[in-house]
């Protein structure tokens, strides 16, 4: 896949007009909250640059993230991004197989040392020497370390790569960890979500391609421009929450009236993502709009945060065993203290010295 074409040349060879590309850039400036006048500059710069070498590593994952990017049956603006990059290694998308595929990766790393972008989806198993996921005889850990060494930056895509995701869920049989748990010396952008919104992945890559920098990140390494607000902050059903109108079941009057899904377990209040604004499937809808509570998939450990259908404030672990034990120990402690107290009272009664008139006369008692 590696070639030396400019982005402009690639676009031309695919029959995509520069006008369409300008439209793409204009959309990106809007999405990334960049100055709107940058669209033309962005388009011109991008067209003249060589296509960015991108190595996409897939570890313990389900390919949902890739699906999210490529799912559309019609060419979309987002997919234009593939024309602006040179995707030199990607299990699902590359034509090459076996040794040839691995050679492509090594070649890209050599040709673009220090400049290539690594995109990772999937978590990395560490348990038992990383044996639970290997590619071409290399453990994921080795491949990540080797590939990351010469990268300009890493974009961790999907909740598995960003926080460990499903493989990391209790009891985490493979010892799965996130990219950021392993790589400490490279800039990493986390684009969580299960899967992440395609536009958000595209936006981050576009930011890097056009400005040569990574977007501003929050404390969990997520681009603030997409993850700055919670779903709840931007939810169109928020007025119902504020009015205290909640759907109680999936088929009651409240559900049909489009009321707030908090009671059905919506994790919107604690979930940072752009679903409520960017939406899914080309801007058609997002889970809450379709009547389903937010699962909180772009937050760490969302698999272990209790039932998807239990309210956010509910407990996540059973209490009865602890409560029972505490009550038993409490009763025992209480009885122990109480019995000692009773013994003390009895002893005090035995030691009671009768107060007599003589005692009072002496002024001091016995």
């Amino acid at each position, binding site marked *: 896949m590696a070639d030396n074409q400019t982005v*402009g040349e690639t676009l031309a060879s695919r029959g995509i007009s520069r006008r369409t590309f300008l439209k793409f850039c204009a959309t990106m400036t809007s999405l990334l909250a960049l100055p*709107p006048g940058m669209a033309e500059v962005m388009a011109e710069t991008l067209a003249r640059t060589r296509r960015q070498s991108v190595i996409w590593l897939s570890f313990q994952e389900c390919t949902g993230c890739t699906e999210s990017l490529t799912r559309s049956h019609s060419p979309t603006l987002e997919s234009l991004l593939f024309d602006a990059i040179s995707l030199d290694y990607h299990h699902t998308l590359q034509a090459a197989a076996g040794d040839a595929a691995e050679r492509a990766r090594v070649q890209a790393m050599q040709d673009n040392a220090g400049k290539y972008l690594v995109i990772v989806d999937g978590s990395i198993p560490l348990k038992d020497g990383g044996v639970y996921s290997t590619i071409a005889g290399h453990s994921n850990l080795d491949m990540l370390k080797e590939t990351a060494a010469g990268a300009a930056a890493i974009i961790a895509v999907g909740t598995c790569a960003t926080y460990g995701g499903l493989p990391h869920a209790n009891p985490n049989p493979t010892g799965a960890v996130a990219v950021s748990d392993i790589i400490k010396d490279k800039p990493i952008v986390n684009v969580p979500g299960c899967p992440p919104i395609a536009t958000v992945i595209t936006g981050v890559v576009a930011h890097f391609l056009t400005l040569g920098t990574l977007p501003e990140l929050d404390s969990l390494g997520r681009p603030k421009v997409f993850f700055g607000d919670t779903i709840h902050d931007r939810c169109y059903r928020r007025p119902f929450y504020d009015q205290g109108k909640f759907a109680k079941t999936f088929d009651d009057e409240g559900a049909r009236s489009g009321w707030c899904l908090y009671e059905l377990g919506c994790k919107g209040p604690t979930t940072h993502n752009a679903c409520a604004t960017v939406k899914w499937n080309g801007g058609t809808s997002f889970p809450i709009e379709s009547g389903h509570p937010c699962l909180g998939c772009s937050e760490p450990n969302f698999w272990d945060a209790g039932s998807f259908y239990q309210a956010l404030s509910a407990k996540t672990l059973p209490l009865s065993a602890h409560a029972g034990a505490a009550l038993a120990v409490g009763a025992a402690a209480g009885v122990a203290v109480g019995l000692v107290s009773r013994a003390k009272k009895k002893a005090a009664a035995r030691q009671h010295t009768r107060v007599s008139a003589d005692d009072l006369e002496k002024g001091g008692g016995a």
Partner: protein
Amino acid sequence: MSGLEHIGVQVVTAPQDGARSYVPALLREIEALLAELVASGRHGRIDLRSLPLLPGDDARLAALLGNGEVDAAIQAMGGTRVRETGVAGVWWVTHANADGETVAEFVEVTLVPEMLKTHPQDARTGLARLRERLAELTHEGETDG
């Protein structure tokens, strides 16, 4: 293609508060950009999506600006509509994706929006394509003759 009307969802919007509308401020910004264009020929652009507009603000702004002479439709992986407003030099550009959803919306202050122009590169590609066609035509003619 919004599914809202099909799944019986009522969308509630906050009550409109005219006093807090961004329209007056926006109009002043457009005025400044237009003055700049007249004075120095510099283009300006406002990303409507980046502003915390109240529901109905965009429609109010559009109504205030009015309709001009140009209303162009572009098909570029989804429709793009470029309209000149009633204020000449002020354009309203709406980008939609292949599904018809608006993905970006701008007010542009310029003589001709870039989206309407043909890029020189595209023109070159067009020329090449035209020459291919001509070559084919000549070839056909030769075969026929």
